[in-house]
Structures are given as structure tokens and as C-alpha cells.
């Protein structure tokens, strides 16, 4: 409930549209009741051969009510939908603002992109919160109360029957079915998740399944999961249908009671016969609006769940213990040194330390290669330098300042980073490069593309979400081009060319080292190439630095690197 309160707070920002929605909803509902009441009265009156002018007044008021109702319904829909979409926009922005400071730390917690797509789905789900959960009950209650008060004026008993009907159709019946619905709902969702996982496995693991002749088996399995899922969906629909049918029958029963009671009262002389048709018509009409209440609990549950999950995501504030300092690195046009002193780090939930007692000196303008087998802690070391994780022990100094005192943003502003995974956005090659610097000109960008041998792309070429239409090598090259366009002087490159072939790699490195001539540069490299150009080589294994020195020194030493190089030569 607390989480929904947050949503409501955001919603209230649109109070004018909400107010209009309710007002027009009420007018539409009450005029519908009035319309049928008047026509019931009209026809009864007509039977008594009244003076002609009363009929004229009655018929024209029926017409007027009809038109008012149609207009009010239109206005209600217009304002409620406008409010909904504005609320959705507010929600997206609010959520983005909450998530933004938590990135990128939060992404380590939820490694799969699944979380994010769920988040987007949840925001989308919440559009029903206003449209189906929040304001319709208010309108419904207003219409019912007014109607009941109106009927009470003619017969208190009929009013009581209507009140009981209201309680039954709006509260009791939906509540009865809601519990079952929640249970089935959960099962349907689980089945769906299972089916989707299996379908993804079927398509992604297709080649291995095919070659190992397990495809038919898997297909049968998938069909079974699908059938189970469809079966549960069917149960869900049946439950919904039953609830709607019971509710509809209930409201018909109420009108029947009104008729029976009215008939009795007329007979008993407590009610004028001319009013009977009117009361029955009122009852039939007013309960038409109660129908949607059958689905109210479903939307309510959906919204609550979505809100809970959203706040669960953003509530992780600063669990990773990063202290965001207030000092800024000066936006300098020269490189600065980086030191690590006795740094250790372990990921939460992992007993083994990922980095152990790392001492590292990267003088200003130096070129360092970080090598070692996968899983030795090289990328984690980068994360610490980027202040994406907090050291357990030891200190990191950038330009003489302790990393704990420096603002994250100012660190990033001073770094040229290429990570193993680089994101590209839906748009064009141009729009993706402009992220580096909005003031770039086309010739500048084209030059950068040429340096990474991507000059066959034009700046206007489309890029899909996550760069889906680019190959792995193209993505890496584009990422390097983008970084080269950013004017910083510290380079952190994490296997930037692992999917690029040797020929292109050579060209790219030549341009890269030209540009970074006076800069501090750290390169994580899997291949042991171009190492002699580096000022120092750090060799890591199992989270420790096991060797460091120039290429010549290490080769002479005939230690770990020497052995790696021998194997690589052997492999070549």
C-alpha cells in the first residue's frame, strides 16, 4: 500500500484532469439514470392521457439528458485518458530520476537485462491504476449515492434494496472472486515465465539441441508447458467470466426485487403506481455501471504488484557503500597519475576475494597493459578505478586525491572508457557518436570512423536498440571511435578489440596510441600483442598482481608472462 501511495502522490499532480474525469463521469452516470427514469415515467404518464404539454416537457428533457450523457461520457474519457498518459510520463521521469543515481552499481545486482524490461512493463501496467482502479469507484459511489437518495424520496424500502445491491455487487461479489483470481494469476505468471525461458532456450540453444538430437524432445516439452499455460489462462478466464456472470445476475435480482417490492407497495398503497416503471428503470440502469467492478480487484492487484516491484528496485540506495565525495577533479587538459595502495575487494555474497592487496602505480602519461587469464580480476580493478564499486581495504588516488573524496561524475568526465559491453542507442551512427560530445562536427566524426576502419558506415546509418544491427567487431570499433571523440586524457580500455580481426586491430591501435601519446592509458588485453610498446605490464592471476615490469624485463625473467607468451606463440 505504501508503494501505491507513492504512485498516488505522483498522480495527484494532475489533479485538474482527475477532477474533470470524476465530474464528467458522475454527470454521465447520473444522466443515464435520469434518462431512463424519465422515460419510464413518461410512458406511465402517457398511459394516463395527461395534458399534452407535460409530455412535451418530458420528451424534451429525455432528449436533453441523452445528449448531455453522451457529451459527458466523451469528456470523461478524454480527460481520464489524458490524465493517464501524463501520469505515465511523470512516472517514467520519476523512476528514471530514482534509478539514475543508482546506476551503474544497481546493474551488478541484477545482471540480466530482464530486470529492466520488467521495470518498463511495470510502469506500463500502472497506466491502469488511474484508469481502472483509482477514479471509477469514486464515480460509481457518487452515482449510486445520489440515485439512492433520489429513490429514498419516493420509497425508503426501494432505496434500502438498492443499497444492499450496491454492497453485494460492488464489494461482496468482487471480493469473493478476487482471492481465487489472485491465486490463479500467480500460477499463470509462473507458467508464462517458464514457457518464455524454455522458448528462449529452445531458440538460443537450437544448434546444440539439433546436433545432439534433443530438439524433438524439447519441442514436446515446450508444447506441454504451453498447454499447461493455456490451461491456466483458461481457468483465469473462466473465473473472470463466472465473477462477471454472478455479478450481472446479482444486479438483475436487485432490479427484480425492486419490481416485486414496488408492486407490493403499490398494492399496499404506499407507492403511486405511476412510479413503478420509473423505479425499475432506475435500478436496471444504475447497476449497469457496477459491471466493471468485477475486474477491479485484478487491476488493483496488478497495480500493487507493479508498484511494489518498482520501489523494490529503487530502494537499494547506496547498499554498495560508495561514498560520493564532493571534490571534483579539475577538468584538466593533461593526464594525471593513478595510484592504488594495498587495495582489496570482494563482491557481496562471494566468500573469495576478487582482488587481493593490489599495489599499482600509473604515472602520468604512462602506458600500462593489464594481462592475465579470464577471471583474474582485471575488469573488477577497472570498476574500482571508475568508482563503480567501493574498496574493502586500501586507497585509490587519482591526481593526488583519494577516490572517496571525489565525485563520481567528475571521475567519469576525465576518463575515456571502453568496456567489454558498450551500449548503443536506437538512432543513427551520428546520434550515438554525439553522446561523446554534442558539439562534434560531421567531418570530425567521419575522421574518427575512418580511424577505426568503419568508414563504410555513413553518419546517417540507422543503429537499432543495443546496436543489434551491428556485428560484435563493429560495435567494439564504434565504441572506440566514440571514446576517441571524447576529449579526456586517461584511458581505461577493457579488451576493446577482442572481436576485431588482427588487420583492423593494428590500424586502430596505431591511431589510438597516436591520440593518447601524452595520456595515461591502461589496456586490459587478452592477446599478448604490442606489449613491448607499453611502459609496464601488470600480470594478474586469481586477484593478485603476480608480476610487473617492462616487456623486456618480464621476458628476461622468464616467469608467468614469458610462459603465457610461449603458449600464445605456440598457438599462433
Amino acid at each position: 500500500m505504501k508503494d501505491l501511495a507513492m504512485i498516488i502522490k505522483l498522480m495527484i499532480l494532475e489533479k485538474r484532469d482527475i477532477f474533470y474525469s470524476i465530474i464528467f463521469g458522475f454527470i454521465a452516470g447520473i444522466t443515464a439514470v435520469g434518462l431512463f427514469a424519465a422515460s419510464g415515467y413518461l410512458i406511465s404518464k402517457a398511459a394516463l392521457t395527461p395534458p399534452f404539454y407535460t409530455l412535451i416537457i418530458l420528451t424534451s428533457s429525455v432528449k436533453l439528458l441523452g445528449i448531455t450523457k453522451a457529451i459527458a461520457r466523451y469528456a470523461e474519457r478524454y480527460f481520464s485518458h489524458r490524465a493517464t498518459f501524463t501520469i505515465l510520463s511523470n512516472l517514467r521521469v520519476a523512476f528514471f530520476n530514482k534509478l539514475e543515481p543508482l546506476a551503474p552499481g544497481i546493474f551488478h545486482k541484477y545482471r540480466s537485462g530482464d530486470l529492466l524490461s520488467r521495470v518498463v512493463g511495470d510502469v506500463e501496467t500502472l497506466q491502469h491504476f488511474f484508469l481502472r482502479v483509482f477514479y471509477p469507484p469514486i464515480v460509481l459511489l457518487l452515482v449510486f449515492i445520489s440515485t439512492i437518495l433520489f429513490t429514498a424520496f419516493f420509497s425508503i424500502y426501494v432505496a434500502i434494496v438498492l443499497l444492499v445491491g450496491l454492497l453485494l455487487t460492488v464489494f461482496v461479489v468482487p471480493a469473493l472472486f478476487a482471492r481465487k483470481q489472485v491465486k490463479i494469476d500467480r500460477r499463470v505468471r509462473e507458467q508464462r515465465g517458464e514457457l518464455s525461458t524454455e522458448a528462449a532456450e529452445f531458440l538460443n540453444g537450437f544448434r546444440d539441441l539439433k546436433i545432439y538430437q534433443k530438439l524433438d524432445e524439447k519441442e514436446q516439452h515446450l508444447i506441454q508447458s504451453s498447454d499447461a499455460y493455456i490451461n491456466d489462462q483458461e481457468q483465469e478466464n473462466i473465473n473472470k467470466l463466472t465473477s462477471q456472470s454472478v455479478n450481472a445476475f446479482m444486479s438483475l435480482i436487485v432490479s427484480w426485487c425492486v419490481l416485486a417490492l414496488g408492486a407490493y407497495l403499490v398494492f399496499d398503497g404506499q407507492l403511486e403506481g405511476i412510479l413503478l416503471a420509473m423505479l425499475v428503470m432506475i435500478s436496471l440502469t444504475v447497476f449497469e455501471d457496477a459491471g466493471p467492478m468485477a475486474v477491479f480487484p485484478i487491476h488493483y492487484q496488478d497495480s500493487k504488484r507493479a508498484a511494489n516491484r518498482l520501489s523494490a528496485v529503487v530502494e537499494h540506495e547506496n547498499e554498495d557503500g560508495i561514498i560520493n565525495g564532493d571534490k571534483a577533479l579539475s577538468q584538466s587538459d593533461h593526464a594525471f597519475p593513478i595510484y592504488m595502495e594495498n587495495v582489496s575487494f570482494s563482491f557481496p555474497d562471494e566468500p573469495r576475494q576478487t582482488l587481493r592487496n593490489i599495489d599499482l602505480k600509473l604515472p602520468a602519461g604512462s602506458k600500462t597493459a593489464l594481462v592475465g587469464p579470464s577471471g583474474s580480476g582485471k575488469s573488477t580493478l577497472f570498476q574500482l578505478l571508475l568508482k563503480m564499486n567501493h574498496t574493502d581495504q586500501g586507497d585509490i588516488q587519482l591526481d593526488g586525491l583519494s577516490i572517496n573524496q571525489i565525485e563520481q561524475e567528475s571521475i567519469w568526465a576525465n576518463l575515456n572508457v571502453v568496456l567489454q559491453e558498450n551500449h548503443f542507442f536506437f538512432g543513427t551512427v551520428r546520434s550515438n557518436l554525439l553522446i561523446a560530445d554534442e558539439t562534434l562536427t560531421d567531418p570530425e566524426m567521419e575522421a574518427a570512423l575512418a580511424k577505426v576502419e568503419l568508414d563504410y558506415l555513413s553518419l546517417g546509418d540507422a543503429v537499432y536498440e543495443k546496436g543489434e544491427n551491428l556485428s560484435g567487431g563493429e560495435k567494439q570499433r564504434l565504441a572506440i571511435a566514440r571514446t576517441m571523440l571524447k576529449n579526456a586524457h586517461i584511458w581505461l580500455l577493457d579488451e576493446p578489440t577482442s572481436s576485431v580481426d588482427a588487420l583492423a586491430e593494428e590500424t586502430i591501435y596505431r591511431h589510438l596510441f597516436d591520440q593518447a601519446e601524452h595520456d595515461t592509458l591502461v589496456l586490459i588485453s587478452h592477446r599478448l600483442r604490442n606489449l613491448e610498446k607499453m611502459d609496464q605490464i601488470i600480470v594478474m592471476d586469481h586477484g593478485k598482481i603476480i608480476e610487473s615490469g617492462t616487456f623486456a624485463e618480464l621476458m628476461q625473467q622468464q616467469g608467468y608472462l614469458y610462459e603465457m607468451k610461449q603458449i600464445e606463440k605456440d598457438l599462433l
Partner: protein
Amino acid sequence: MDSLRKVTFGYKWQLSFLFALSVITAVAIILQAYFLVTIVDRVFLQQLTFSEIVWLLWGLLAILLIRTTASYINGRIGIKIGADVKASYRKSLLHKFAGTAISSSSQGQSGGKVSTLLDAVDEMDSYFSAYIPQLIQTSIIPLIILGVVFSQHVNTGLIMVITAPFIPIFMIIIGMQTKTKSEEQQEKLAAFSGRFLDTLQGLTTLKLFGQAKEQENAIEKSSLSFRDATMQILKVAFTSSFMLELISMLSIGIVALELTIQLIIYERISFFTAFFLLVLAPEFYTTLKQLGSTFHSGRSSMGAAKKVTDALTDTEQPVQWGKKNLPAELMPAVIRLQHVSFAYGEGQFSLKNIATVIPSYGQIAIAGRSGSGKTTLLHLIAGLLPAADGQIFVHEKPLMQYREKDWFDQLSYISQHPYLFSGTIEENIAIGGNSDASREEIEHAAEQAGIADLIQTLEDGYDTRVGEAGRGLSGGEMQRLALARAFLKKPSIILFDEPTTGLDLYTERILQQSIQQLSRDATVITVAHRLHTIKHADNILFLENGNLLAEGTHDELVETVPEYRNMVSLQQGVKNE
């Protein structure tokens, strides 16, 4: 949507049942009005005693029950058909995908296919569970009501006949206006929601470039412009229901006016008839209007159905296997490629006219720059993709004439990214075996692949769960697990996509040794990224832009092919640094 209609007619008896239920509902509607009006008439005008109308009240109650039950059963039948259709479509889709998934997964389209399989199929539901039953009701109930009305009072009937067509006409006019617009909007919506996700996923990148804050405005701006665009569409939709309401309202008004005039001025009809018709009139128009609202969900269903049928009629050909035996003792047989071509689609990458002979126990390397078609060629040889043109011969018979099982039983494919299935490590290795492998055989294979030590350090050993929702393995560990699969299988043909990235040197060494060991009893075709591999190959297939530019040994190619020399000399240079 002919296909949907065809599917619908497959449910003959359910349809007749729906028809019958509609007739029952229509009769119930009429009787309900009849009883209601009779009661009011008797109490109000004839002033009968309460006990004289009690039987009428009970009759009315029974009718209400019948009407609700009929609509309930109606709904149940719709739900049943919907579930049935979904199940059968999902089955066909799976079958289709099973035939053609390799090119889509290599083109990164798996996500779209999962969505078709789940979402699009789910969306088809409402066509059958809501639209069809409503369509049947709308085609029957108004007619029966109209018949009754005509029998009571011709003028009212005439008014209804004249006004009723305005409802469908309006629906069609407005439908035509909104259709293209709303389809555009649907695309925009999908694109927009993708955009928001895109921004969230790229947050790390944005922050590193100091651009995250700017996105707040962008999100708000695009959200609001999306709102405004949607409101334009919705306004038309609201206007349409406004018009429909107005038409039915005016029509009922005319009916009421005519009845009143007849009742008072001409005194030609009774109060009973007038009230009866006045109760029936809204029922008549409501059924017509309801079709309008279900029409909308019906149409989005049709869109989903189109997606599904498109996927089903996708021209992409599945690989068709034959029935010929491929005796294991013939393997490894000579593989001959005769002018083999393949294209992923029009204007997309294609392999052209590949011709070569791969001898038994040959060590073949496929070389070329990235994007030259190496992996596609490997898929063709594996029989995972059908050749668009030309043939692959195995033992001088077209590959596709053999039994699928016979071929794959002889084949191992070690890819750069072996797939881990959810299950235990043991199951994941055992998947490579032709029959039920014993635990000992599996452990032996793991030892050969150099992964046994690692497995022993795990708490649950070979029973450790891996894959989805299990323990993740590093790239190197997965490679070694794939090798263990191959050691267990003992294939006579090995297709090997040599890893380019991310392996530790231990795994690299194991991989090299293992392939050598496996190659003693097999033909090995390697997509090569290493000089070592191509130097030791008996024959190198050098690809460029989907063409087989040259073939021969390393020395021959260095000698005669400048493009090859370029590619290699660079690697050579690096080696000799």
C-alpha cells in the same frame, strides 16, 4: 483475415451451439421485457392484487436466470475455442521454428520469435473468445427482436429498420479513418516503450559520457509527445462512440415519441404494447453497439494473427532430410560441395557458389576476415542450413537424402559459445552421448576435456545445476564442457568454430590438445582464427565476401593469393615481434 475465418469454421458444433444460445438469449430478452411490462401493467393500470402477479414474478426470475446462464455458457464456449486455437497455433509455430531457427538465432532474432510465440499467440485469444460469440449474437438477437417488434407495432419496427444501419455505417466510416492511424500508433507505442528500455539499459554508457541527466528531459518530452499523438487517435475513437450513442439515443427517442403519440393522440395502442416496445428498443441498439467495442479487440487480435501467420508462411525453407541410411563404418566419408549457395534474405549476406572436396580425415581450415561467411559455410556443411542452390555430397550421395539422425550421430559442433541447458553438469555432458552413457564414461570425458578437476571442487560435483537459474560457468569452463560432450560422443566429423576471445590460456591449451586428439578419428573442419591452425591444415578454404577466393595449403596460398598474404603477414609480424 481468411486464415482466421477458416480456423473459425473448423469449430462447427461449437458455432451451432453459439447460434442456439443466441436464439435462447433473444427469447429470454423478449420474455424478460414481456414479464416486466406485464407486471407493471397489471399493478399500475389493472390494479390487480399482489398474489395475482406472484407467478409472473417467479416467471421473470426464471427468465433472468436463463438469460444469465445462456451468456455464461456462451462465454465458456468462446474461452474454450480460444484456448484450443492458441494451443494449435503455438504448436505449429514451434514446429516451424524447429525447422528454421538456425538462421534466426544467428541473426539475433530469437527475441522476436519468443515474442511471437508468447504474446502474439496470446493476443489471438480475444478474436475467438469475444469477437466471434459477439458477432453471432449481433447477427441473431436484433433480428428476433425486430420480428417481435414488427408483430406488435409496424411503425416502431420501421423506425428501427431505418435507424439501425447507421450504427454499422458509422462504425465503418470511423474505422476506416482510424485504422491506418492507429496502426501507426501501435508501432510508435512499441518503438517508444523500446526507447525507454534502451535508455535504461544504456545508463552506464550515458553516465560515463556524462549524458545521463539530459535524458530526463528527453524521456519527458517523448512521453508527452507520445501522449499527444495517442490522444489524437483516442479522440477519434471517443467521437465514434459518442456518435454511436447519439444515434441509438435519438433512435430510441424517436421510437418513444412515436409510441407516445400513438398512445395518447390516436389511442391506437395499449400502454402494454408501448412500454413493451420501449423496453425492447434499448436492447436492440445495445447489441448492435456491443459489436463495435468487441470489433476493436477483434481487430488487434487480427493483427496478432497476421504476425503469427506471417511467421508460419515465412518462405524460409527448413532443412528436409531423407530416409537413406548412413552406416557409421563409412564415416568419415568424403564431403563434396558442389556450387553451394545460400542467402539469408534478399539483399542480405550471401554465400556464393562454393565448390570443394573435403577428404576423409581431412584437416580443413576455413579462413577469412570477419563477415566473410565462415560460420555460414560451417552451418551449411553441418546440415543446419539448407543450400539455396547446389548440393553437398557425402559419400557421393546428397547429404539431404540421408536420415537426419544418422548424420548428426556422427557430428560434433564445437562453437564459440556452447549452450548450457538447465540441468546438472552430468546431464549437460551426457547430452553429447548417443545412448545412455554411464557415469564413468562421463567422468572420463570430463577428464579428457580438462574439466574434471574443476567439477570435483564443486560442492555437488557432477550434480551441480548449471544453465538458467543455476550456477554460471565461465567461457573457458563452458568450452571445456563442450569438449567433454565431444569426447563422449566420439564423432567422425568435427565442426569447430575456433574461439577468438575471452579464454584463459589453460583452456586454450586443452582445446588445442583435445582437437588434435579427436582429429585422429575424424574429419575436422575448423573456422580458423589462428595461424597455427591454418598452417597445420591440409587444405585452407579462403573466403572473402561470401566467395571462395582460393583454396590450398598455407604455403600455396601465401605464394599465390595477395589478399591471403596480407591477412597472414600481419599475424606473422605480430608473432615475430
